[in-house]
């Protein structure tokens, strides 16, 4: 089980409090699809993803981003229990959605970049270290039911 200090807990929560799920969610998902375009293969039902403009305007992309951040909220509120919190979601991504688990790491990268864009120097090196530990634990929990 991952161990968290008091400082780490409060830092993760402080960062999370500054995140507007509606604003940030759509940005994150657009970045994943644009920066790592092979991920588009999972979103055949999302309609037009053929150009960057289309991706940035796509409502389903924005909604999916919001959904993912809502799930991340669960991790922020269950830092001591992430594996169990994400067990069903992990199984879903493995068995039903057949998502390559390396995608979780790419998504984590885009989440961190988007947060850095938003928070700028408020994401100090120390905060970055703590955030990256947290998001690594989330990625691990999402991969936990894969075999």
């Amino acid at each position: 089980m991952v161990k968290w200090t008091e400082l780490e807990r409060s830092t993760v929560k402080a960062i999370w409090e500054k995140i507007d799920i509606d604003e940030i969610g759509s940005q994150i998902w657009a970045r994943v699809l644009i920066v790592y375009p092979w991920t588009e293969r999972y979103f055949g039902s999302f309609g037009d993803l053929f150009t960057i403009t289309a991706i940035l305007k796509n409502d389903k992309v924005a909604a999916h981003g919001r959904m993912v951040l809502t799930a991340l909220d669960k991790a922020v509120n269950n830092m001591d229990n992430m594996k169990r919190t994400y067990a069903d979601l992990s199984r879903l991504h493995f068995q039903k959605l057949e998502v390559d688990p390396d995608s979780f790491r790419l998504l984590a990268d885009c989440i961190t970049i988007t947060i850095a864009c938003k928070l700028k120097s408020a994401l100090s090196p120390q905060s970055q270290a703590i955030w990256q530990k947290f998001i690594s634990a989330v990625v691990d929990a999402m991969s936990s039911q894969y075999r």
Partner: protein
Amino acid sequence: MVEWTDAERSAIINLWGKIDVGEIGAQALSRLLIVYPWGQRYFQAFGDLSTNAAIMGNPKVAQHGRTVMGGLENAVKNLDNIKQTYAKLSVMHSEKLHVDPDNFRVLAECISLCVAAKFGPSVFTAEVQEAWQKFLCVVVSALGRQYH
């Protein structure tokens, strides 16, 4: 050989034009040493790296950050020839400095983060991020190329 679209070339060159190499280099290297502290093993000669404040105030860290960005400038100016441009640097990091090549990837990540934090989402758009991260991937690959 890597292919660049015109949009990617101009995104990389425009972004590079905005970057203050002294500022971003120092920040990126500080973050590397703080977020991935095992990286400190390569910098024993840099003096005090014992606290975050020490790292962020260390002039040798800042200077080395600038050196790294100077190397990156070479890549920006030689987008069609990065492998060749970095061949000697790759040999040096492998045979003389014995740097684990995974560190290049991690430093690239820190550089991207500093750039994102500096310029925000209106400059570091998804499109610019794509070109920039592709560029850094090529650089990282070129640096690891002469390892064996």
